[in-house]
């Protein structure tokens, strides 16, 4: 059992992990890759670097620093967080238990851009199989996605119906994912989602498919996907936290770009430090 599981290894996650480790807590940091910052080549506005520095360099140094101080770091993709008494963080390979969780996975990605998509959110278009799957018992369900996250949603939806169509929206589908799909598989890009009061049809470049419900689980889950499933407030696409960086779910914290505000390294690092101090205080209330 970890005291804290930090999801994300960028400036918010790694800063938090470093502070938490120095409070002598048992800290696990899970990171999928170097994140958005890792893809940024030129950073000129971050304090104490005379020359231009790459985001990749900053992230790698932060992770190395966390590891040196004793943080356990695993490079895995988180696909879900569950919360009963403690938290269970599920990755594509493992499950980890923690007393608290800090989400620091960066800004949530925008929704897919397909005609009609926005219009039917909440009217057949859903982002959460475990929330809405039952409504489509024995009905036609479409699932949009191309990776482990989609398989996770698919597994839930199989409990409700046999009539499922998987849409990859033209995205690449790794072989090990394709092998897990026993359902109808449509790989050409989506053109439009149509319906009346509720969603009725998915139109792709090469065909039309009737659906009663359409579940979206593209790529890897974002901070908002975690928040949605666990019942944390989201507003304007950002997770809502209090002054202590805690969400409305006790023990679930969030920091960095996923909570909005200034989307800069300096603010994310500051968030991480604030969250760490608050988590340390919170953990003392549990004892």
């Amino acid at each position: 059992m970890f005291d804290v599981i930090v999801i994300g290894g960028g400036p918010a996650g790694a800063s938090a992990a470093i502070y938490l480790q120095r409070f002598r807590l048992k800290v696990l940091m899970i990171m999928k890759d170097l994140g958005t910052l890792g893809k940024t080549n030129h950073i000129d506005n971050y304090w104490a670097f005379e020359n231009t520095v790459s985001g990749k360099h900053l992230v790698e140094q932060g992770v190395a620093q966390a590891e040196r101080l004793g943080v356990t770091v695993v490079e895995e993709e988180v696909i879900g967080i569950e919360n009963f008494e403690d938290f269970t963080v599920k990755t594509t390979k493992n499950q980890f238990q923690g007393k608290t969780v800090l989400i620091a996975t960066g800004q949530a990605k925008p929704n897919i851009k397909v005609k009609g998509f926005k219009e039917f959110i909440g009217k057949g278009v859903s982002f959460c199989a475990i929330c809405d799957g039952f409504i489509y018992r024995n009905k036609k369900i479409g699932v949009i996605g191309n990776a482990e996250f989609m398989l996770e949603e698919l597994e839930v939806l199989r409990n409700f119906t046999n009539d499922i169509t998987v849409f990859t929206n033209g995205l690449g589908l790794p072989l090990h994912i394709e092998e897990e799909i026993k359902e109808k598989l449509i790989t050409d890009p989506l053109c439009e989602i149509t319906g009346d009061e509720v969603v009725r049809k998915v139109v792709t470049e090469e065909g039309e498919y009737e659906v009663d419900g359409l579940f979206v689980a593209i790529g890897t889950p974002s901070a908002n996907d975690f928040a949605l499933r666990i019942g944390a407030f989201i507003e304007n696409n950002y997770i809502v936290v209090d002054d202590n960086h805690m969400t409305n779910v006790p023990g679930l914290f969030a920091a960095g770009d996923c909570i909005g505000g200034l989307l800069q390294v300096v603010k994310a690092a500051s968030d991480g430090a604030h969250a760490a101090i608050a988590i340390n205080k919170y953990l003392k209330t549990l004892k």
Partner: protein
Amino acid sequence: MPVKVTTETFKKEVLESDIPVIVDFWAQWCRPCLMLAPVLDEISKDLEGQVKVAKVNVDEEGYLANQFRVSSIPTVYLFENGQVKTQVVGLMRKDDLLKRLGLK
């Protein structure tokens, strides 16, 4: 406190209510629904006598969920004089929910 509403009591409790009624379609296994519950408890207390808060369990009341085309939960409706006035889907904070329902 919110009142539990069934297919049998829906007409009396919601459609024939003298005051506006917020109806929450929810289920026990839906985590966002459970997190919305304290928000609705608070609204029920804040607006006592002005607005009634009712809850429909979609597992037990599939007919009502179907009738109101609930396709995502939590879904919250505001009824006034027996008619649906507004519909809000998803978990949100008290102020946002009241604003979107047109109660603020």
